[in-house]
């Protein structure tokens, strides 16, 4: 396996673009990433495109917008891990030695589609939602948070504080979908969607695109003296756990992916400068502090109380690891297929010292994590 480097990244501001198309959104992100890398589309040898709602031929449609170079294109769908899975395909295209330069793009146009799910077709009398519990994402992740409350006494306010933090972080990110400062009271007093998740503890839907240009060692030398290395790329699915087929287990596959990634990179949680993780709901972020081994088992709530994942937290504390400096899914937004690549954009900017007001000092390694229910989890570790 050859070493793989991030040569360029780009993302458009997440938001709502009803006048655009999936392809035109993706094209903008690709242009930004190519410019950032200082390379041309004609230099790109393969492309992996992640999109969930349309899935078919999205990559080719992007090339129809920006340049039909005839390269191989892979279209990827893997729930909320779609973009990160596309990035991993591009990673392997280079790591295998098959290509020198590969392009990953993630894109989604969700509009105002709510609740991140659907009820399906057929006779509506047989729809189970509302009469047999809930499969909506706010409810599923609400119950995941409830499991942590049950085991460790975590409180709704501790989950809510994560939304306060991520909205505050987003104030420093011009590409965030929302720029709104919220108090703990604002979050707790917003309407309940699925207890313990209130409205401001749920990520928004939206449109967006992000892209990354990857290169092997020989190529990257031609473009930069300060390459960003993909030190680890892990993808896992659920192993069997007793409740999983009824109540999705978002924890085990994340723990497994984190273990694989730390081992691949030869690093530990103490080496990670910041993490972009899958805060689709405030409840989820707290669980992943432990799943990614930033916090000991059961101490996610204490990490919140001590602001150990907050940019404004105790920098001198060796446990301090800012999480979701971009604003996270809760504020930056979560256009499903774009998210996994966007997380890698943020870590790349942190590694380069280009993160502006949200820059983490003395930054040497960062982690990007996403999960998709159903289930898929990716963890990437980037280093310089």
């Amino acid at each position, binding site marked *: 396996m050859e070493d793989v480097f991030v040569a360029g990244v780009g993302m458009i501001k997440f938001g709502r673009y009803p006048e655009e198309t999936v392809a035109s959104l993706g094209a903008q992100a690709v242009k930004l990433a190519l410019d950032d890398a200082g390379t041309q589309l004609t230099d790109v040898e393969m492309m992996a495109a992640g999109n969930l709602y349309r899935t078919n031929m999205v990559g080719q449609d992007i090339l129809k917008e920006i340049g039909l170079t005839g390269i191989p294109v892979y279209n990827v769908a893997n729930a909320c891990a779609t973009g990160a899975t596309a990035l991993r395909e591009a990673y392997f295209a280079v790591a295998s030695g098959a290509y020198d330069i590969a392009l990953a793009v993630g894109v989604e146009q969700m509009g105002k589609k709510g609740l991140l799910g659907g009820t399906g077709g057929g006779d509506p009398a047989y729809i189970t*939602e509302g009469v047999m*519990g809930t*499969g*909506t994402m706010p409810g599923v992740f609400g119950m995941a948070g409830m499991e942590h409350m049950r085991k460790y006494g975590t409180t709704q306010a501790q989950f809510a504080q994560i939304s306060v933090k991520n909205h505050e972080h987003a104030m420093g990110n011009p590409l965030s979908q929302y720029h709104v400062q919220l108090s703990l009271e604002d979050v707790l007093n917003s309407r309940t969607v699925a207890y313990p998740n209130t409205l401001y503890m749920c990520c928004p839907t939206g449109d967006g695109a992000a892209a990354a240009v990857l290169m092997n060692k020989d190529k990257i030398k031609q473009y930069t003296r300060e390459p960003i290395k993909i030190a680890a790329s892990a993808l896992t699915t659920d192993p069997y756990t007793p*409740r999983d087929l009824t109540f999705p287990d978002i924890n085990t596959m994340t723990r497994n992916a984190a273990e694989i990634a730390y081992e691949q990179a030869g690093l530990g949680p103490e080496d990670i400068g910041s993490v972009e993780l899958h805060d689709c709901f405030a409840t989820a972020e707290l669980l992943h502090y432990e799943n990614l081994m930033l916090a000991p088992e059961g101490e996610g709530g204490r990490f919140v109380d001590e602001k150990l994942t907050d940019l404004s937290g105790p920098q001198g504390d060796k446990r301090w690891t800012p999480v979701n400096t971009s604003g996270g899914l809760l504020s930056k937004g979560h256009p499903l297929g774009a998210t996994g690549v966007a997380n890698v954009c943020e870590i790349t900017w942190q590694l380069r010292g280009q993160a502006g007001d949200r820059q983490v000092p003395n930054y040497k390694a960062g982690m990007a994590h996403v999960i998709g229910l159903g289930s898929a989890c990716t963890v990437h570790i980037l280093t310089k």
Partner: protein
Amino acid sequence: MADATEQKIEPGQRPIVDYLELPSNDLSDAYIKALVNKDGSAAFLYSPTRRFDSSTGDLDPDSLQPARLENEGELWVYTIVHQSFPGVETPFIGAIVDVPVQGHPDLKVAVRANLVGVEPEPAKIELGMKVRLRARAARKDKEGNDVVIPEFVPI
């Protein structure tokens, strides 16, 4: 000679999911069907299309045997849903209930259902509380059948 497909089927009771068994018109007889693997280490909610034990990867066609769940279980977690899809009545308590498999006291299956008979307020709901299965005709389908749902009530 009448074609079997032309026979008129009288409307009756239909379970909302395959794993809810309705052995008679008396809904108090209803129970939840399961499938248990060979060594009794894993159980699944019944499905007519589940053939293999995915907990171990055992692809023996006889890897799963039919079983039924007890009618009492324990509340594992819940959420109180205030916002759902159009037409879904809220609030409701969506629950995950751990229910033992009959004849396998240490083996439980997680069942997703509504928790009813208790106010949708966190202070009123106790994690770990004992609950009992109740089957109820909740709707009519397009053919006029009563659609029966499983739900849990506190004991």
